[in-house]
């Protein structure tokens, strides 16, 4: 599903922020990406959700070598990856419904299907009564649920989340992880960046640890807890 081979990454002419990162996350896997602030977690995820290209090394995603995939093929790959951004990135002038519908509209899905599936998903995340509300009028927790609904609406093969529990209380964070586990049980590959060690310890999943741009040798989450 995801394979990195000696991946190095720098922004522009800046210093290298990822060095020789090598790992593989198999299809249907679930992994946490941990490490202190500035370690390069967000950068690694950006490579995974195709917001950046690596400066060196190989990135394989969904069976494609990104270096040799033409740019015009990338939108199709992106549609199979659901992203929960750290700051949610909701569109303020669009209703909750239209925010969640975005990936489907972009992919050219028919409106009847969009209406049906978005309505169902918003009810499922408990926002059935807020479909017409704009994000600024909603609470942080509600905004987060919109962001998650948008990430999963197009039934992605891979879900990537960048500090999805950063802005919510422990109870909400726990519920969110349960949701990811639920999706994972149905075959979705999940990669979650977090520096919430308590959360990582609580869910016994594989753990990738970044420090200053380098991936540490792996141990199981239970051993490290």
């Amino acid at each position, binding site marked *: 599903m995801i394979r990195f081979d000696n991946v190095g990454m720098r922004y522009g002419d800046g210093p290298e922020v990822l060095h020789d990162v090598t790992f593989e996350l198999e299809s249907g896997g679930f992994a946490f990406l941990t490490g202190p602030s500035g370690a390069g977690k967000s950068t690694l995820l950006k490579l995974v*959700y*195709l*917001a*950046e*290209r690596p400066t060196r090394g190989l990135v394989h995603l969904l069976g494609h070598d990104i270096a040799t995939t033409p*740019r*015009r093929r*990338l*939108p*199709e*790959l*992106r*549609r199979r990856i659901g*992203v929960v951004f750290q700051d949610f*990135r909701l*569109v303020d*002038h*669009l209703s909750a419904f*239209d925010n969640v519908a*975005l*990936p489907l*509209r*972009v*992919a050219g899905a028919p409106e009847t299907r969009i209406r049906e599936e978005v309505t169902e998903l918003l009810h499922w995340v408990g926002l059935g009564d807020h479909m017409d509300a704009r994000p600024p009028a909603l609470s942080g927790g509600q905004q987060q649920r919109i962001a998650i609904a*948008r990430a999963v609406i197009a039934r992605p093969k891979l879900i990537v989340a960048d500090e999805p529990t950063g802005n919510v209380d422990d109870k909400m964070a726990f519920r969110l992880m349960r949701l990811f586990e639920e999706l994972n049980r149905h075959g979705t590959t999940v990669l979650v960046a977090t520096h919430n060690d308590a959360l990582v310890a609580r869910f016994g999943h594989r753990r990738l640890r970044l420090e200053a741009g380098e991936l540490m040798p792996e141990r199981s989450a239970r051993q490290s807890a």
Partner: protein
Amino acid sequence: MRRPAELLLDREGFLAWMIGLMVFLAALAIAAALAADGAAARWARSLAGTATVQVPADAANKLDALAAALRGVPGVRQARPIGLEETRALLEPWLGTELRDLPLPRLVDLELAPGADLAAIQKRAAEAVPGAVLDDHRGWADRLAGVATAIQAAAIVVVLLVAAAAALLIVFATRAGLEAQRSVVELLHLVGARDGWIARQVERQALLLALKGGTGGLFLAAAVIAATLWLSSGDRLRLLPQFEIAPAAWLSLVALPAAAGLVAMLTARIAVLRALRRLP
């Protein structure tokens, strides 16, 4: 209800207003240029067919005979002696009423056919009244033709400058609108939108906005132009020179909102595609 666009180029309505204002200014500039052009041409034409013969004050009693003699010269369509009262009235603004008894040189107004023989007219006038002098306004006409050409050139330059300023402002405003939506553009890209899809979104919006604002600006300009035409026509107000615009020229005004739409559309498309090309 139509759902709102994913990308909002003009959240505050600023762009539509600005395009409206630009179309308004461009329309006025074009209308003024067309009117100036027409007026200059008309002055030059009206002076070309006229001349006056001036006689010394002491020959005033021969004015009618002079007019009759001049009517016999080929090319003279009409010769009209100007009476003493009319002459006084003409000069009153300069001389005032106190100098009513001042001896005044007298005039015969001529209307000439094109190609009239000016030398023959001068000769006949001098025979009828020694000291009579023909003034064919040539100096005036030449100078007016020069002025008309200068006005036409200035009008074209003004229209081009206003059009260029309008286009530039539309370009900047469209780019600013797009820049404000940069995060949305990036988001659409990241959820798998193709560049063409995003470009079509902003393009369509820019076009609609420009047509909306531009039509508003055009209507406002049309109202101002119509009011000016009304004020300058007939005897209503002598303040303004005769002012009219050929019907065909009106069409160039109608094309303005479409031109503004095209500029906004192309700008939006080029700017968004350029921004997207920087993303992987």
